[in-house]
């Protein structure tokens, strides 16, 4: 078959791009001709569908108007020659084709599950946001009605499709397997030396809570791996958050906000006076394996995670995980006291959980073994089988 994959180009190489790479390889090995039809998601004209939007209006909801621009680009794509179209991130499911499979990992989240949070964080103008959200949901509903079959990237995403779009039929699940390929040889596994957090520094990953937790466990070292738009801000927090942390610090104020961008390079190598936290940005597989091998546990403080690939990767190599009770899809595979700990979304609760694991090697081993067992269910063999079933559903 000639298969067209439609994908907005955000000029990043994140987990989703790696998932798409795997699927493209799989389809090519099966003898299909696969073309990735991309469009620049950042460069959109301020004239969606011929209507000139002045700068003032655009600034009232750049996400909304940008989405319309991307929508227009999608609709302009010529896909007649493809036997099957696979759409990916929003709004690529807006393309029109009689055999259309949507690999659906998330909505434009500020207008869906994250909507109340972006309002409370002051990221949007509430009245305009409400209008824009209603408009985007109408557009997406119309687009969704033209999709032959939806592969939902996890149970949480499938539930959102039901609750937001009323999409129940022709939906099946797609569970991506671990991507990093990191493994830990038993010979390299040594005494734990640090608490680990592997996450982008973006809203709503809440890595600010990890900084707060670090201040409350002065006897432990911490390592944060990742990049993102809030890296400078999080590093700045690390500098100024000293040991004198009130017990009832308003954790939400640390992350539920819309701070100005801070250039990470302006922080330099400076750390806070009581910080035991070191930041690493781009790490290779070997370094990540080394960090896993000596980690007490992996902390994933994210709010409403869509899937949780990083957490699964840590569990695959036998690392117990600490996640928050509002962690979204993470709660579909992390079970409290069995393969990890589920805690309140506060620095204090995270610190207590990490300290508990660090002080009890037996618990670490027990949770780690169960985590490894849980992760065995998430393989690429299963993922590719689920993907093939999605293709079959569309073609039949």
């Amino acid at each position, binding site marked *: 078959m000639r298969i067209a994959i439609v994908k907005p180009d955000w000029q990043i190489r994140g987990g989703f791009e790696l998932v798409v790479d795997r699927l493209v390889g799989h389809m090519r090995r099966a003898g299909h001709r696969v073309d990735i039809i991309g469009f620049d998601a950042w460069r959109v004209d301020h004239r969606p569908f011929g*209507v000139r939007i002045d700068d003032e209006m655009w600034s009232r909801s750049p996400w909304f108007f940008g989405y319309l621009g991307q929508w227009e680009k999608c609709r302009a794509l010529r896909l007649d020659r493809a036997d099957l179209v696979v759409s990916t991130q929003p709004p690529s499911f807006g393309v029109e084709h009689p055999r259309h499979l949507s690999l659906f990992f998330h909505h434009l989240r500020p207008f869906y599950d994250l909507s109340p949070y972006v309002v409370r964080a002051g990221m949007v103008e509430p009245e305009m946001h409400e209008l824009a959200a209603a408009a985007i949901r109408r557009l997406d509903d119309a687009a969704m009605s033209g999709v032959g079959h939806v592969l939902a990237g996890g149970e949480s995403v499938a539930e959102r499709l039901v609750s937001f779009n009323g999409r129940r039929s022709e939906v099946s699940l797609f569970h991506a397997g671990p991507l990093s390929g990191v493994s830990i040889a038993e010979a390299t596994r040594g005494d734990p030396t640090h608490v680990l957090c592997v996450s982008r520094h973006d809203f709503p990953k809440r890595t600010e809570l990890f900084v707060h937790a670090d201040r409350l466990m002065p006897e432990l070292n911490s390592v944060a791996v990742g990049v993102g738009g809030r890296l400078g801000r999080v590093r700045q927090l690390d500098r100024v958050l000293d040991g004198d942390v009130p017990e009832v610090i308003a954790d939400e104020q640390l992350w539920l906000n819309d701070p100005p961008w801070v250039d990470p390079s302006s922080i330099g190598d400076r750390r806070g006076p009581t910080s035991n936290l070191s930041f690493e940005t781009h790490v290779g597989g070997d370094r990540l394996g080394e960090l896993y091998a000596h980690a007490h546990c992996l902390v994933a403080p994210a709010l409403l995670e869509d899937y949780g690939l990083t957490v699964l990767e840590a569990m695959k190599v036998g690392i117990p995980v600490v996640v928050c009770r509002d962690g979204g899809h993470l709660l579909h595979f992390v079970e409290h006291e069995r393969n990890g700990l589920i805690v309140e979304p506060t620095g204090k609760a995270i610190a207590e959980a990490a300290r508990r694991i660090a002080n009890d090697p037996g618990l670490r081993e027990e949770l780690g073994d169960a985590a490894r067992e849980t992760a065995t269910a998430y393989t690429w063999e299963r993922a590719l089988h689920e993907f093939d079933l999605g293709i079959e559903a569309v073609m039949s």
Partner: protein
Amino acid sequence: MDVNPTVQLIEDLVDRALGRADRPTTVSPAVTTADLERHLAAIEMNARVDEMPQPVGRYSTLKRLILKLSSFVLVRQRTVNLASAGVASGLIRSMDEIKAEMAHESKRQAGALAGIEPRLRSAATQHRDMHEETVERVRGLEMQLAAHEALVAEMRARINDVEATLVLESSRRHAMERSLVSRLAAASRPNAGDPRIATESAGDLEAFGLHEMYERFESWFRPSDATLRQRFEEYVPLLAEATGQGAPVLDLGAGRGELLLRLRVAGVDCYGVDSNQSMVDRALASGLDVRREDLLEHLRSLRAESIGAICAIHVAEHLPPELLLDMLTEALRVLIPGGALVLETPNPTNLVIGAASFHNDPTHVHPITPDYLSFVCKDRGFAEVETRFLHPFPEYELELGSTGSVALDALLRDLQWALKGPQDFAVVARRPGGR
């Protein structure tokens, strides 16, 4: 904010995105001189309409007569045709003249440009010299700028630190204020013994900033998500009956919306009400329709016979007796005939629940026995009242065997119920009629 123009703009954009707006009309391609001349030749060829060849053959006499009779009209038509052709011919000649003038003007301008070119070359040379001089100066300025930028970067870093410190100080002050307000309120509250205090608990929680604390408390003691999903699944078939009646299911005290989500997955039209803002935010984040309102006020605002089914899971134990009765009265009024009411609450006949864990929650008013709840439902006018015991501990399933004594066996069974029996019970009742 001036909403109307914004709404109109958004509506217009959505319509265009969905392909519902009018398409712009296409512009005709330009007409060339050759086209005009071709049309003019056709007009001239057929202009003399009165000079048609004389008819011959069958009916030729009749045809000649018709021609003769119409000749006075055709003569005038010939005049019009020839005049039109003349005008068109004149226009074409004018166009040709204009073109010729334009060509002439182009040539004249090309000549003028040729004269300008040497002057431009000279200006370019001067410009290059000036450019080189400017580059030198810019280099010098860049070195000065680099020094200033280093200074600005250092200043910016310090400002960032100060700003972040201010945020932290603000959060610390906020935390201290909340703590102080709570203590003052607790110390000065005059109505600690008021039996209606629970009706004010939602307001109190909000005033003292304790909604989030209650959500954390509730999370701490609640069963796992998987267990809740399984428990709520049991109610779905009963509540789904309402869908066929075209009336929604109302979840009173909807919390995070776990039951509503199960109902939505099953295709049931439903919504919820809760007084806790944090819980409502969580439910909204899941795309559910949950409104922040007082439960009783909401029921009072509804039309009679407008709700298909009502559920209130672990709500009744939070209400003082008179409010529970008011809620039942209102529920009976708003339910459609045959509509179901489900009330789930902790089972105090399990002594571990009644004597201990019930009191973990400080907002519980008092335990409600299955007999009482069943009675008040009947007393308020509900029919088909049924009590279902739910969620026993795993040990309740253990086979006890026999001690050999009938009395001891009975005591053991009672103990098994009292210590490991159902943790909750539900009363399911219906509004009379309709089934």
